[in-house]
């Protein structure tokens, strides 16, 4: 789960990291009011989950009320890389001399956290990492001990951070690490951390990704998740508790187990079709869950054809078949053709139960995918 900038900034500020004055707004009038209260210049920043917001026109700086109104009108309601902007953060623009980067993430290869510092902040840090990796100082953290203060200092000095702010930057890095650990984050980043002409540091942006699996022990963060859905189908998937990703094609895909569902997507592509989504019903799904999955996929107007691919282990084929029957029985006419492939635990029982007047049945994965791709092509004619 990715927090919005304003949500992450709130956490950072509460933990003592300096952040600019800011206010969340949902209308042009609210933005203008915020500008009046805060004074100029101010920045208006779209609150959507996309990288490179600035380049895409999602961040503008205004030096007076006319400019601010214009910026607010252009950003609120805009479509930013497929996301509708309904909230902006209005923020005091920081007068800076220097931009730094601070980050904490999990080093999968080492199986431990890593803190990163760069004196080349304010730019795409992935580009820096790819082109001049030496510009980023890294320090691996032993999870048994946490980040030692000396490690924070070491990273800061190795990154070439100016000496007069090194102590302040180290302190921010230690706090960022604590935030990462205490909130079960997978990533916590400040890019840029601005150094002002007075020698203060200010977090001008804030990024935090939280481990979905740990939300049960962070009810405050779980509430933020509800605010963070931007797509109606994703919201619905969240309510049903599915792993769901919407894609651009027209073959709807439902399966059990992430690896098998990904494989089904890949085979749709291999046989010349385009997947409309990734939907994993998970292990041990009961009939109702299967019906919900069909509802999800039928809700996507781009879907012309559906393929069900179930290989039962913990999931039982007869339960799945019952779910498919129940879901389809609600329709006078099935909205889109559905191909079903059942294998594994209780697959034979499932095949006997399955109402073959409502669905098409195939025995192998390859045949099922090819049929679904053919159905989608016909639907497109």
């Amino acid at each position: 789960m990715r927090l919005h900038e304003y949500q992450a900034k709130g956490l950072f500020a509460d933990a003592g990291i300096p952040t600019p004055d800011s206010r969340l707004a949902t209308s042009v009038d609210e933005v203008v009011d915020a500008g009046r209260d805060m004074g100029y210049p101010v920045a208006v920043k779209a609150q959507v989950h996309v990288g490179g917001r600035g380049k895409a026109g999602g961040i503008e700086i205004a030096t007076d009320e006319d400019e601010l109104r214009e910026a607010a009108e252009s950003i609120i309601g805009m479509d930013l890389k497929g996301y509708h902007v309904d909230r902006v953060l209005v923020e005091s623009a920081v007068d800076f001399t220097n931009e730094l980067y601070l980050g904490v993430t999990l080093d999968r290869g080492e199986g431990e956290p890593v803190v990163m510092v760069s004196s080349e902040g304010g730019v795409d840090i992935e580009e820096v990492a790819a082109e001049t990796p030496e510009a980023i100082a890294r320090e691996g953290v032993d999870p048994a001990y946490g980040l030692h203060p000396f490690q924070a200092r070491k990273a800061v000095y190795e990154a070439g951070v100016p000496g007069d702010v090194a102590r302040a930057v180290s302190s921010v890095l230690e706090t960022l690490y604590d935030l990462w650990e205490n909130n079960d984050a997978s990533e916590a980043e400040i890019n840029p951390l601005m150094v002002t002409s007075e020698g203060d540091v200010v977090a001008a942006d804030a990024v935090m990704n939280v481990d979905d699996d740990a939300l049960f022990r962070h009810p405050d963060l779980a509430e933020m998740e509800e605010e963070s859905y931007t797509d109606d189908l994703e919201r619905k998937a969240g309510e049903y508790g599915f792993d769901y990703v919407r894609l651009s094609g027209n073959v709807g895909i439902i399966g059990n187990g992430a690896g098998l569902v990904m494989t089904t997507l890949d085979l749709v592509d291999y046989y010349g079709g385009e997947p409309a989504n990734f939907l994993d019903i998970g292990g041990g799904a009961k009939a109702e869950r299967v019906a919900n999955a069909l509802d999800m996929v039928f809700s996507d107007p781009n879907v012309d054809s559906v393929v069900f691919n179930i290989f039962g282990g913990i999931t039982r084929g007869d339960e799945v078949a019952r779910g498919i029957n129940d879901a389809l029985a609600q329709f006078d006419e099935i909205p889109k053709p559905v191909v079903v492939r059942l294998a594994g635990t209780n697959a034979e029982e499932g095949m006997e139960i399955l109402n073959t007047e409502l669905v098409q049945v195939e025995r192998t994965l390859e045949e099922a995918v090819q049929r679904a791709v053919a159905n989608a092509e016909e639907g497109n004619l």
Partner: protein
Amino acid sequence: MSVLVDEDTRVVVQGITGGEGKFHAGQMIEYGTNVVAGAVPGKGGQEVDGVPVYDTVHEAVRREDADASVVFVPPAFAADALFEALDTSLDLVVAITEGIPTQDVMTVNRRLSETDTHLVGPNCPGVITPGEAKLGILPGNIFSAGNVGLVSRSGTLTYQVVDNLTKRGIGQTTAIGIGGDPIIGTSFIDALELFEADPDTEAVAMCGEIGGEDEEQAAKFIATEMDTPVAGFIAGRTAPPGKRMGHAGAIVSGSGTGTAESKIEALNDAGVPVGDTPEEVADHIEGFL
């Protein structure tokens, strides 16, 4: 022969009184697995399917001489259960539980590095040596005994590939589902090392997926350390960057690392043919035998 488990493996089931634990303990016993004890705090003295339950893993190990455990403990308590298992010096711990917070697994793995125990998982289907023992939730009936080793990050993909193999008469020595989380105990390399050392394993099927660099590392290991031929499959070719595809580990970063292309290329460079479909993986394995 086999790796990790065989008919002599003595298994304690942690969480045997829960719904999943009880059901799958029964399935394991039915398969012929030597399930000797359960361990559930507060449930000591009970019996499940004739298996004695103890309050602690320590007591289960002491009384029943167990040397492996299978963990069906819910995510919130799973890390503690794994620490307990690691504290008893078992040879093998198989963690089935899905959804354990990543930072919890990180600290478990830190502890694991100080022990000689093999941890398989978490979020995995388990380990099976067909005809001898299964530790986990794999459907026993699709497996058959033979000479192909299988290692996979995904449970259902394991079943798919095994099904393709079994249906053409190719059996397996052992199948290991290592799990799809970003941090896991047994890696591809660990599993490949075990298969390389097993004289009965004549070929290995390896199923990977997008995310991380484990497959790339495994490719290097295969190129330099293995004589046993390996065929591969990589799921997630069509996954868009930045989106998490179910498995916590299955996310491609925008910068090109962890993509299906980079994994397939690394494997091909190591002399490992990669199937476009699971059926093609079986074709390659058949060609090796």
